[in-house]
């Protein structure tokens, strides 16, 4: 039986968090090895385990039931959990569907937050581990590389991951639209709410210069300021220091507004009208909405930010349809390559490849001999080019036929031959042969 790709998994759509936690495989490094150790139905394996999904990708030349039994037994044994519960929650993809699913996962089209970039990094880590454990063979290697390039294509050709889809990211994006890069900007956190802290963290990660924290409780202000390596102050000093900051994130529990337009007008004069960005995450609001009417002042409250996030998400959903077309195209290409791993198509491709080179060279040679070449010479040259192709390719074909009779090495050598003769017409960087040319 030919090698077949299988994918077994649990994700946020098929299993709730308790089940996903129980069957997480993140603690086991040599887990892929355990799947392929014995002379079982699994030849290659890779395990992806994140907080939202646990997936086992494997390649085997047995039928689905055998591979599934082996995988689920190893999986549930490792986790010390029931195999039946696992069976009830998993999804199984086979062949082209498995490839399609993996490409969608890599491109973050199957993620809880569409287009979030973390999943690609997690998949790369999983692949690195599989390579280290030597559980990734010809097919998994190729499949993962193709999934990375499909994800890259989707990122560059569609806007599926281009806009911010969390409140704090939306705040950072808006700050960048106002100030450009944030290296010269400073911010003040008024109050110590969790969401405000997260927004401050994202701003700091985006290069923000300094952060100040003003809070009713001085201890909590100091604690937070230490965390951000910033400056702390009591709430009474907040207004006096506001002219020093460009971005204000407010999240106090105050029952009425604590900052109004006339106060900001004075502060703007002190700042020589440099722009200010206010992010009011508090409910009820901390900042008087009139502040937004001042020149060079921008005020966004929690509802405004939520709207930005919603719009961005809607935009991503539109782009996802385009991304899916790319996934399909790339999965089809992979399927073609997979089919070519049989010996016969590779032999045909090799001979076609040789013949096409011979034809081109023959044409060039005939052209250089001029228009008066007689028919006899022409026929002799054609004969020569054809037999050269057959003779040159004879030894590699015999070698491949012999290797394909040996268990487990056929794909490796066929893949090598395909790369050696560039039968899949992969792009070779233009500077590849530069050194040779120079020599």
């Amino acid at each position: 039986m030919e090698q077949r790709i299988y994918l077994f998994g649990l994700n946020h759509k098929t299993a709730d968090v308790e089940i996903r936690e129980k069957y997480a495989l993140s603690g086991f490094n040599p887990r892929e090895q355990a799947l392929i150790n014995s002379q079982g139905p699994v030849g290659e394996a890779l395990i992806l385990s994140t907080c939202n999904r646990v997936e086992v990708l494997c390649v085997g030349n047995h039928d689905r039931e055998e591979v599934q039994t082996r995988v689920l037994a190893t999986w549930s044994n490792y986790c010390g959990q029931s195999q039946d519960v696992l069976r009830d929650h998993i999804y199984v993809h086979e062949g082209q569907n498995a490839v399609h699913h993996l490409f969608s996962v890599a491109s973050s089209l199957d993620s809880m937050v569409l287009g979030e970039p973390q999943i690609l990094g997690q998949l790369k880590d999983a692949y690195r581990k599989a390579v280290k454990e030597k559980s990734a063979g010809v097919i998994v290697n190729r499949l993962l590389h193709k999934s990375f390039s499909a994800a890259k294509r989707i990122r560059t050709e569609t806007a599926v991951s281009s806009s911010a889809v969390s409140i704090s990211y939306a705040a950072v994006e808006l700050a960048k639209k106002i100030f450009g890069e944030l290296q010269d900007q400073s911010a003040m956190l008024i109050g110590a709410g969790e969401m405000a802290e997260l927004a401050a963290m994202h701003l700091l990660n985006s290069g923000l210069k300094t952060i100040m924290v003003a809070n009713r409780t001085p201890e909590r202000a100091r604690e937070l300021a230490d965390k951000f390596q910033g400056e702390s102050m009591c709430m009474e000093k907040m207004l006096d220091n506001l002219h020093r900051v460009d971005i204000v994130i407010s999240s106090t529990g105050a029952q009425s507004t604590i900052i109004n337009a006339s106060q900001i007008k004075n502060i703007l004069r002190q700042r020589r009208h440099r722009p200010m960005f206010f992010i009011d995450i508090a409910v009820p609001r901390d900042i008087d909405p009139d502040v937004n009417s001042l020149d060079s002042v921008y005020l966004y409250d929690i509802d405004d930010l939520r709207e930005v996030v919603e719009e961005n998400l809607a935009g991503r959903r539109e782009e996802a349809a385009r991304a899916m077309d790319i996934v399909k195209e790339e999965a089809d290409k992979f399927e073609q390559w997979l089919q070519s791993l049989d010996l016969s198509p590779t032999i045909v491709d090799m001979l076609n490849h040789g013949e096409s080179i011979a034809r081109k060279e023959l044409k060039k040679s005939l052209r250089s001999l001029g228009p008066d070449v007689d028919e006899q010479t022409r026929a002799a040259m054609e004969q020569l080019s054809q037999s050269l192709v057959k003779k040159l390719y004879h030894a590699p074909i015999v070698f491949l036929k012999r290797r394909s009779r040996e268990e487990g090495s056929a794909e490796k050598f066929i893949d090598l031959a395909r790369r050696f003769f560039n039968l899949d017409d992969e792009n070779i960087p233009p500077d590849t042969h530069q050194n040779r040319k120079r020599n």
Partner: protein
Amino acid sequence: MISFRILDFFIALLYLTGALSFLLGLIYSRKKTQDWAVIVTAAGFGLHTLDLVLKYALGLGQVLTHNQFYISLLAWCFLLCYFFVWWKLKLKFLSITAAPLALLIFTGSLAISPTTLPVPGLLQGLWFSLHIGSLFMSMALLAMAFGAGISYLYLDRKIKTKTKLSSVSKDIPSLQSFDKANHIAVIAGFPLYTVGVLSGFIWAAFTWKTIFTWDPKEIITMVIWFVFAWLFHRRISGAWRGKRTAQMAIIIFILSLASFVGINFFTETHHSLRP
């Protein structure tokens, strides 16, 4: 002469391609198309430089009395200024106004029939380098401030009103970058404008034995100078930045352009460029 026509045609074609492809690159959010648009505009600018140098060299200075040459030079100044800002502030986005404005003025220079201007031989070199050079550079800086100002007001309104950013707005640089472009344009543009006006007065004093002749061009230039001086003062004192400076720069540029087209071409003036 025919070879110059071919050169002019290629310059206009490159400017047109640059302007259109930048616009398409923005609409479809294609960074590569935008980069290509800048390269094509730069190629047009290179050819344009060659065109001006050749016309000057082959005409042995006679081109300094041709109206076409001056209008073409103004278009060239627009782009020189744009490339400077692109290099200094990495504000490729201003290509959205720079290339179309240069195209418009350059093709305008081709459309008018060439006329020889009555330029007195006396102080010709000084008149050219100081009066025309500084006024044209100042106008080019104002053109840049105009582009930056329009972009600033558009983005400011989008952020203020919290409306959805289109694909064009997503590629647009920050408000701060546009304000920086405005700052450079005002800080460098006003002294240049002043030098241009003063050198004009000095030239007039030598030629007509009077500083101010109540020529329409002189009157509107003084009006622009006062408005520009006001903006310059508000800008360096820190009383204005952002929206107000953007609005003022737009007004001053429109006044300058109106003065250039309206006064120089349609009014009886000794600054006439009328064919």
